[in-house]
């Protein structure tokens, strides 16, 4: 069955992947088919999607963050005459059950890219008298909610093509996102925050990409203040987290201001375990594998916060040999840590996921990319056990973005995989300095502007060939 899916007009790259991930969670086993309204650009908020049942559509919409509404389309057209013909040709058997005299209904008028006065809205609602509504109107809590959506042709803006054409839709609402989650969980009122705590809306999107749900175990190897696990717990999953920084994981900022209190704040079950460990030398017992249903994390990119791994800076560079801490100083000794490059960090994450995820389990993580060349092919991390199913870009600045990668485990963890990882681990260890520089984006993000861009700002007639594309991708 085709449904009209109307998205909130933000985080454009994240909209369809969220619906696709949730479709799988709610039982769709084939990949979804999408269709655009006539002459609409892919950035439009209006998309048609094929789903097996109204129940699945409702479940997806309710659990989503970006679906403004899912509708059973009763008619569409470029003008009200076309709309009338379209609605009248929609089978009565599909319409009449929702127009019965013992039901209540409401018709709302919504617009995209234009505004209508109250009188104009009333006029449009009254033009629908050819639909045999028999029930009573209830504006507060109707049984059935109908939406009339009108938009005009939009203009080119900021290098972006026009996204919608003149169109009118009329549909019955099947489900919509519960955006009330966002003010409840917003970071502004979170008890314990850290500098890289994940924003609530994004954390819920990540939890949806990972299909977090009751009965599942979700792991975050860079847990920090637990902001990602909070959203997974809200969706019913059991959570577990680890971090190399013991101050964040064990102490927080005090007995009432720590990771545990973040969960208590929302009445959510606390993580089943938090531990301090180094992902580079993880303490998993032999034979342990395929235990997590999902791994959701935001690894350190090395831009605002760098990763750390065991071994002091001097030990890793070979300046100093590994030393033994004298007995009397051993308790309370905080082992030194050294820089952990993004490349090695992601390698270890993929290896962890390959081993510890169940088959068909999901790995969801952010990966930073530089926005230098137009359309240059970015190489994302790959692993033989994984299939990349979604890539969603969030622009952070004119210089760099982060992409949310969703990978599904399709191949089992074999001896070959383990051996390859072991060799790579040694390679990182032997050539520590070389790998630190590889893929280091900190310098690219913070380097001063070059001369050519200064010329650009001075000349007003110079047209930047690369569209800024900032607005709705942020």
């Amino acid at each position, binding site marked *: 069955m085709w449904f009209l899916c109307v998205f909130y007009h933000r985080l454009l790259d994240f909209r369809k992947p969220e619906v696709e991930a949730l479709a799988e969670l709610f039982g769709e086993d084939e990949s979804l088919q999408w269709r655009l309204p006539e002459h609409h650009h892919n950035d439009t908020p209006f998309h048609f999607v094929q789903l097996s049942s109204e129940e699945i559509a409702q479940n997806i919409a309710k659990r989503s963050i970006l679906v403004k509404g899912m509708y059973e389309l009763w008619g569409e057209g470029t003008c009200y005459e076309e709309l009338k013909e379209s609605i009248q040709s929609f089978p009565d058997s599909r319409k009449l059950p929702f127009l019965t005299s013992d039901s209540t209904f409401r018709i709302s008028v919504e617009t995209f890219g234009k505004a209508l006065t109250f009188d104009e809205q009333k006029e449009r609602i009254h033009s629908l008298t050819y639909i045999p509504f028999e029930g009573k109107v209830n504006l507060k809590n109707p049984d059935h909610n109908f939406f009339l959506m009108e938009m005009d042709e939009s203009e080119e803006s900021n290098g972006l093509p026009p996204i919608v054409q003149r169109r009118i839709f009329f549909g019955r609402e099947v489900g919509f996102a519960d955006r009330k989650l966002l003010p409840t969980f917003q970071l502004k009122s979170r008890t314990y925050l850290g500098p890289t705590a994940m924003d609530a809306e994004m954390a819920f999107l990540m939890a949806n990409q990972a299909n977090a749900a009751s009965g599942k175990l979700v792991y975050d190897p860079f847990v920090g203040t637990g902001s990602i696990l909070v959203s997974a717990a809200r969706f019913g999953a059991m959570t577990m987290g680890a971090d190399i920084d013991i101050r964040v994981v064990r102490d927080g900022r005090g007995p009432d201001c720590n990771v545990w209190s973040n969960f208590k704040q929302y009445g959510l079950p606390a993580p*089943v375990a938090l531990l301090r*460990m180094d992902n580079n030398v993880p303490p998993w017992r032999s*034979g342990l594998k395929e235990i997590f249903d999902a791994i959701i994390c935001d690894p350190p990119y090395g831009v605002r916060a760098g990763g750390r791994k065991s071994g002091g800076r001097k030990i890793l560079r070979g300046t100093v040999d590994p030393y033994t801490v004298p007995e009397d100083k051993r308790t309370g000794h905080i082992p030194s840590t050294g820089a952990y490059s993004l490349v090695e960090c992601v390698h270890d994450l993929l290896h962890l996921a390959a081993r510890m995820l169940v088959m068909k389990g999901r790995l969801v993580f952010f990966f930073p990319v530089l926005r230098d060349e137009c359309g240059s092919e970015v190489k994302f991390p790959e692993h033989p056990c994984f299939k990349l199913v979604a890539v969603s870009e969030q622009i952070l600045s004119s210089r760099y973005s982060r992409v949310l990668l969703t990978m599904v485990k399709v191949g089992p963890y074999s001896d070959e995989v383990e051996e390859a990882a072991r060799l790579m681990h040694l390679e990182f260890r032997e050539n520590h300095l070389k790998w630190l520089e590889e893929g280091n984006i900190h310098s690219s993000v913070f380097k001063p502007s070059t001369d050519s861009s200064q010329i650009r700002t001075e000349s007003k007639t110079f047209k930047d060939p690369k569209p800024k594309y900032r607005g709705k991708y942020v």
Partner: protein
Amino acid sequence: MRLIMHNMLTCNIKGVINKSPLRIEAEKVIKKEVDFNPDFLRHMLAKIEWKALVDGARSMGYTELPVHAPGIESDEPFLRKFHHALLELNLEEGSLVCQESGRKFPVNKGVPNMLLHEKEV
């Protein structure tokens, strides 16, 4: 630290061969209630190293677990015991001891510290 976590850990210092579960030295154990979820428990049952769980529970003062895990059909009374041992016993203060090397990993405020010292990597 709950036994679900303990069951996953080992000592990974250089030179340790076996990578087997750690012995618990409990100093402070508290019980925290957790919602009972049979689906989750059944999923976990397949992954747990049973002997380590039984020994761990015993060191925390809980002796009700059967010595052997039941076969495919696990009934509710068993699941309740399993649930209690796996999720409701919390080691607040104590250590995890490697049977092979004797290295102790401290557990403070419920968080085990598995970080290795400089020469152990």
